[in-house]
């Protein structure tokens, strides 16, 4: 062949290559890229699929065997813990790499790099919060101070990175990377810590002091304290830790009822005259700016857990149940795994990105978590130097803010340079008119309260899983810094317990009488010029706890943690209104003995405590009304068992009525006072008002009138939506679950599914109390993200441990394991987890993978 022929061939080829590359960035180019047989989506078919075989992995020390059971749960058998966590990192990445990466981007404020300008606000906010800064410092601290745990985190990262390298070299990155057109960066120890920090941050209830301050500015002080009491109504008898709250001889130094009755927004408590017109006017705008930045108020974040002693257990062993209520997405937050190595054996739920199991059992002890809800964040009003807004006034002098400069890269847009100003309290989130709001959060303050951001929960999580008895477990909790949790415990020796570990910031507040009281948290923004600082944390020895209480069980559902005589007055917090806590107590008090099936039944319980409390009052109020529709509705509701079942119409009518009732009570009251947000008090307040204040201004002109009008409104709205045949108003038409993919792409999401439950049921499935959602549906998006049951019998491998979450182990949407747990979860069934001693113990195996050291 001559040179001319070669050139003839090269020329069209060059044109072709140029053409293909020029198309890459266009929509057509994206399609071509996705369909490229060499590196397109079809190359990713097998990523996240389970297979048998042998894989050589660099950095592994010894052979690791992973056995998958028929539910695609991997059981890792390794010689050393390092190899076990290496393997876990590899598996997490193999099944959930994109989820891990997008979580990391969310937490570090790097979404816009791959999505575009739509996520700039989220990125800016997360950069300001500074989780990445704290995570990096924590990683550095662990490396220097706790090498054992650091080494395991590093081994996990190495496993993740091996999977990333393999996928990249084989052009097999998961679908979402190809859809978005980017590749993941290597994983680091700080990335694992970052995700733990993010989880802690979302469980902080960070918005409530801002919201309460805003309400205080806009409303009458007395009203704020009635509608949003310091501690929720009806909870003294169902606190997480039973009893008065006193620790041995130590109790709060002032009558707690007096403390609860004080107005904690006043200047003696906050250092600010929040009712001063000039200040409140400036502050209102700042608060709105800050609240907008913090986004929508979370709804329905909560959890249940309880433990039952052998004396109340028909199994003869202690039992534990836990279902954390968190966002329900695909892929799920959780990944089930069993890990067995020398001196380490655990089965339970891990969070992809974090190696240590969060909720699980090691065959000797089991543990479960709910959020403690106690205030661990304070907001400060900073006074800025009028001549130089980078200076602020603190303890009698003007200080320079420290500054962190960051760049947000934006796909398809210009980079954004961001300067984050930080005071002694923490980062500034809003500033105007010579004032600024900063915040101090335990996750950033760090365990030494030095602002380093160093927290040690990874150490705690590691040692909790290694605990061989109650003392080991208590020792491990010494390191639990954030998020503060109600951790229930059960073991094979018949012990049950609850602990409320975490960093609880203490301030000393001088009451108007001059008496000084140690308080935890706050209800409002505080004066940042000094005098309202944290003096430290509640000592570990004073951690709220209860071990083997007389009543034989412990139950937590985000309710008030401890009795009012606790030596520190818990001023700040955002507790559940209490319906779930009451219901657990009702159920556990209802029988002498409880079996495993009972525990499962309680987790799926859909009894609504709020309707149970007030429905008769409401029915009595409308019984004599002349609306012809009422008699049928009253008859239905009178016979209703308060179960929020999806195929029943009573829950729909109750929800609509209670929603309309709250509108009647609060809508015009709030809007007349300029409150532009739909900040309604918690339902426990409504219940309390119905039970205790029917003649109050909240029911105007009368309770009967308000009840009547609200029922009428509810029925009108339901008729408009579903027609006049009440038989068509089933709850499942209003109340539907949607499992959105993390990308929000509908094709990768599942649902909507008609769903049982409601706002206050144990089977937690909240939608707002808002009739407008009839026209503009809001789906259930939070709920029991992981149902876990454990009977603490000493038998292994024949243990009785069960779990399920709404999703599947694989992040690959065409895998059969992408959503295979959804139906199980919807129908309240469980997967039996295994507690093997050896590889041979695994039942119903579908695959065995051997990981061996290699290049």
């Amino acid at each position: 062949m001559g040179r001319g022929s070669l050139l003839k061939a090269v020329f069209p080829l060059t044109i072709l290559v140029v053409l293909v590359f020029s198309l890459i960035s266009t929509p057509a180019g994206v399609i071509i890229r996705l369909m490229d047989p060499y590196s397109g989506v079809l190359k990713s078919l097998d990523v996240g699929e389970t297979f048998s075989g042998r894989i050589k992995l660099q950095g592994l020390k010894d052979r690791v065997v992973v056995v998958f059971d028929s539910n695609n749960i991997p059981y890792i058998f390794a010689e050393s813990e390092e190899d076990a966590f290496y393997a876990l990192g590899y598996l997490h990445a193999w099944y959930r790499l994109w989820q891990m990466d997008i979580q990391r981007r969310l937490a570090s404020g790097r979404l816009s790099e791959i999505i575009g300008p739509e996520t700039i606000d989220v990125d800016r906010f997360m950069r300001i919060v500074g989780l990445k800064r704290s995570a990096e410092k924590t990683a550095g601290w662990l490396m220097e101070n706790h090498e054992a745990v650091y080494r395991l985190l590093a081994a996990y990262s190495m496993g993740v990175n091996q999977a990333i390298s393999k996928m990249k070299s084989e052009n097999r990155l998961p679908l979402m990377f190809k859809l978005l057109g980017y590749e993941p960066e290597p994983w680091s120890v700080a990335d694992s810590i970052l995700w733990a920090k993010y989880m802690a941050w979302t469980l902080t209830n960070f918005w409530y002091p801002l919201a309460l301050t805003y309400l205080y500015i806009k409303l009458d002080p007395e009203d704020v304290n009635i509608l949003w009491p310091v501690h929720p109504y009806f909870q003294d008898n169902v606190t997480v830790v039973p009893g008065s709250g006193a620790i041995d001889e130590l109790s709060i130094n002032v009558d707690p009822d007096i403390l609860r009755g004080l107005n904690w927004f006043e200047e003696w408590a906050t250092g600010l005259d929040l009712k001063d017109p000039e200040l409140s006017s400036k502050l209102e705008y700042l608060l709105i700016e800050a609240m907008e930045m913090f986004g929508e108020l979370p709804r329905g974040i909560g959890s249940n857990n309880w433990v039952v002693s052998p004396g109340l257990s028909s199994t003869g062993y202690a039992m534990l149940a836990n279902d954390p209520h968190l966002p329900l997405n695909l892929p799920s937050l959780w990944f089930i795994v069993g890990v067995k190595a020398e001196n380490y054996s655990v089965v339970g739920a891990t969070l992809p990105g974090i190696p240590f199991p969060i909720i699980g059992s090691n065959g000797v002890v089991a543990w479960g978590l709910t959020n403690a809800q106690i205030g661990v964040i304070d907001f400060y009003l900073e006074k800025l130097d009028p001549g130089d807004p980078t200076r602020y006034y603190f303890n009698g002098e003007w200080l320079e803010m420290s500054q962190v400069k960051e760049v947000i890269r934006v796909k398809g847009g210009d980079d954004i340079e961001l300067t984050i100003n930080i005071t002694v309290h923490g980062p500034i989130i809003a500033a105007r008119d010579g004032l600024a709001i900063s915040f101090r959060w335990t996750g950033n303050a760090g365990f030494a309260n030095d602002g380093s951001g160093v927290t040690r929960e990874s150490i705690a999580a590691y040692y909790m899983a290694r605990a061989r008895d109650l003392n080991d477990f208590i020792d491990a909790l010494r390191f639990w810094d954030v998020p503060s949790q109600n951790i229930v415990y059960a073991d094979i020796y018949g012990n049950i317990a609850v602990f409320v570990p975490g960093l609880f910031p203490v301030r000393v507040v001088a009451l108007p009488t001059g008496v000084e009281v140690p308080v935890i948290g706050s209800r409002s923004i505080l004066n940042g010029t000094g005098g309202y600082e944290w003096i430290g944390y509640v000592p570990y020895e004073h951690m709220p706890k209860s071990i083997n209480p007389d009543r034989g069980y412990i139950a937590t559902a985000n309710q008030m943690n401890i009795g009012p005589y606790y030596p520190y007055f818990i001023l700040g917090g955002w507790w559940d209104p209490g319906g779930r806590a009451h219901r657990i107590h009702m159920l556990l008090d209802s029988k002498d003995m409880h079996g495993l099936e009972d525990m499962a039944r309680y987790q799926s319980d859909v009894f609504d405590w709020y309707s149970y409390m007030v429905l008769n009052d409401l029915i009595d109020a409308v019984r004599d009304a002349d609306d012809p529709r009422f008699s049928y509705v009253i008859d239905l509701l009178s016979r209703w068992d308060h179960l929020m079942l999806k195929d029943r119409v009573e829950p729909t009518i109750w929800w609509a009525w209670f929603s309309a009732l709250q509108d009647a009570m609060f809508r015009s009251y709030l809007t007349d006072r300029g409150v532009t947000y739909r900040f309604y008090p918690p339902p426990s307040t409504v219940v309390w008002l119905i039970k205790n204040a029917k003649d109050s201004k909240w029911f105007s002109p009368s309770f009967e009138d308000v009840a009547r009008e609200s029922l009428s409104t509810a029925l009108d709205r339901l008729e408009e939506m579903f027609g006049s045949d009440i038989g068509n108003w089933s709850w499942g038409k209003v109340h539907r679950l949607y499992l959105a993919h993390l990308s929000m792409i509908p094709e990768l999401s599942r649902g909507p599914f008609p769903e049982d439950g409601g706002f206050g049921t144990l089977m937690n499935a909240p939608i707002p109390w808002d009739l407008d959602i009839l026209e503009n549906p809001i789906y259930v998006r939070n709920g029991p993200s992981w149902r876990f049951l454990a009977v603490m019998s000493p038998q292994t491998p024949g243990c009785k441990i069960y779990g399920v979450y709404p999703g599947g182990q694989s992040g690959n949407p065409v895998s059969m394991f992408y959503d295979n747990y959804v139906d199980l979860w919807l129908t309240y069934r469980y997967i039996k987890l295994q507690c093997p001693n050896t590889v041979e113990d695994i039942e119903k195996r579908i695959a065995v993978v051997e990981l061996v050291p290699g290049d």
Partner: protein
Amino acid sequence: MIDLVSSISSGFGFLRFLIASAASITAVSLYRIAGGDPLIGFIVSGLIIGVFASRIIEALASSVVATTAIAGIGFLISTLNSTRAMAMLNLVADIAGVPLLILILIYIVLAMALVTLSSVSLFYILRIVLSSRAKG
């Protein structure tokens, strides 16, 4: 491709090419069914074609074309015959808002383009290498 076809037809005859290709395809297919490595299949097919071909250059070249083509077609058939692959294509079609048929066509065109490009490139490389060796 025009160069390739003319070379084949003029060099050792179209019939011989067809026979060689058929033998090559059969050999590679059997070998692949047995789970063998494609590279070894390629070498085996080259040897088979060598029996039929009068000149080693054309033998190797046609072997390359034939094996690459069969690999490409086999790849396409096996891919499009896979439930999971079709599920993935359906998913991408839904997400991108592009008809499934268009996606499949794009995929086939790209796959064939890839096959053609690689076979033509290999053909030229082999010819150049072997020609220069023969001359040397």
